[in-house]
């Protein structure tokens, strides 16, 4: 059952007014303009035992993504494809309000939005992950681990997922006469085949303003958010309105303008980090 979340009623109203009066001047509390994401740091290969990994810092938000690749069974209706699974955990060390336990609706929504965007652009070449058609394929697990929450978990998570996938290696294996597959964890067949790259851009609606990459403070006073997935060609590859307010048609146009701009910043940071890596 989804439930209206509790927000302290008085304080945010004052804060919201203060924020809006800054927005009116095109400014934000952290000296950004309305349309620029925070500083982005992307470090890959941070978990050597994972097939791929990345730590993304988006301002003070930190998300760790780990890619594990294991042998499993394909879905019945796609016998000639590997499997991609995205899972997100909001571990309690990331925020005073996260509680231990199974993923809540926010963590589930995040994982599903990331998962759909990766899937719909065909980010991972699933056809290349077949070991024996209909029987044995590679399962690619993308685990998103939010470790410090200062707003905009979607964009940081997607960058981390993408950076981890782009640097992931496919393990080698041996096939026995019995048909059993043994994964050779220490040997690699080469990089995991990635066909497309996608980012998400989250904007928040605060009063009449649309701002990109909201901090936690801004999310708290925001009316609603829009998460737009965008591929290398600038196409829309997924979208999720999340939050309690509605949007006018005009606001949606504005969201697209802002998102397509910010997407370029994200793509640039990502490609630079990956180029540095090798």
């Amino acid at each position, binding site marked *: *059952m989804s439930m*209206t979340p509790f927000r302290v009623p008085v304080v945010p109203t004052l804060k919201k007014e203060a924020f809006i009066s800054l927005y009116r001047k095109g400014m934000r509390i952290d000296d950004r303009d309305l349309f620029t994401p925070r500083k982005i740091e992307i470090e890959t290969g941070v978990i050597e035992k994972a097939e791929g990994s990345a730590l993304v810092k988006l301002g003070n938000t930190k998300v760790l993504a780990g890619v594990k690749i294991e042998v499993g069974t394909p879905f019945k*209706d796609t016998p000639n494809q590997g499997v991609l699974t995205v899972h997100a955990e909001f571990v309690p060390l990331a925020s005073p309000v996260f509680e231990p336990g199974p993923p809540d609706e926010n963590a589930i*929504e995040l994982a599903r939005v990331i998962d759909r965007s990766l899937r719909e652009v065909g980010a991972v070449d699933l056809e290349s992950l077949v070991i024996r058609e209909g029987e044995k394929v590679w399962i690619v697990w993308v685990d998103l681990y939010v470790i410090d929450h200062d707003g905009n978990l979607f964009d940081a998570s997607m960058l981390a997922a993408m950076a981890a996938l782009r640097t992931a290696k496919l393990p080698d294996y041996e096939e026995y006469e019995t048909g059993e597959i043994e994964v050779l964890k220490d040997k690699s067949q080469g990089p995991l085949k990635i066909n497309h790259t996608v980012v998400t851009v989250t904007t928040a609606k605060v009063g009449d303003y649309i701002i990109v990459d909201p901090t936690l403070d801004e999310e708290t006073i925001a009316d609603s958010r829009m998460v737009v997935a965008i591929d290398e060609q600038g196409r829309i590859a997924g979208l*999720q*309105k999340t939050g309690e307010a509605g949007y006018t048609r005009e606001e949606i146009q504005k969201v697209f303008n802002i998102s397509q701009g910010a997407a370029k910043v994200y793509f640039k940071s990502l490609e630079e980090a990956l180029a540095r890596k090798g």
Partner: protein
Amino acid sequence: MARKDDVTLFREDGTRLDGRRPDEMRPIKMEVGVLDNADGSALVEFGRTKVLAAVYGPREPVQKYIVIPDKAVLRVRYHMAPFSTSERKSPAPSRREVELSKVIREALEPVVLTDQFPRTAIDIFIEVLQADGGTRTTGLTAASLALADAGIPMRALVGGVAVGKIQGRLVLDIDEVEDNYAEADMPVGAAPDIGLITLFQINGVMTREEVMKGLDMALEAINRIVEMEKEVLKSKYMKVEV
């Protein structure tokens, strides 16, 4: 997930497999007050998709710690009956159902006047009885009717419909077969009387132009859906008056 390019989802005359034009909705049925215990209820059908919604409240929630001092808590459960799908669905809530419960709640938050009922809960239970595409938007429509039937004050009625992109073409109100082969699926919910889009998702790849065109198709259809809601509520109201 399957996207076989050898399947044709359009006939030679440009109509769809079930004979609809690209911008044509399936037959819609709406009925309110279908349950006795609930404070409000509605059964809505879009073609073979059937969704039942019931509203209880405003009421004091059993778990008192969930109340909010200055408004009512909206609680929404989107749930599929085990027999609603082709393969039996396990009754335990899936991750998909958890997400859609949230998406539908957030599509209702902008229209329910929750600040009139502080410290209470308004519970909206949506049961998909038969799933043939568009269950979340049909559920949103049913929830809107059930809230109105329960006499919960609302800024405006909401309705929803999904637009699909199939073989490069935009089509309104896609059904399950179409959804299985669609390049993109875009559910939209809106409250036309206050000009707000309150549910908006895209699953798939579209150009920005396609999105805006599809959004306009959806909004135009939602206008008609909300008009139907008003008719149904009016006729029930009139019946009561007689």
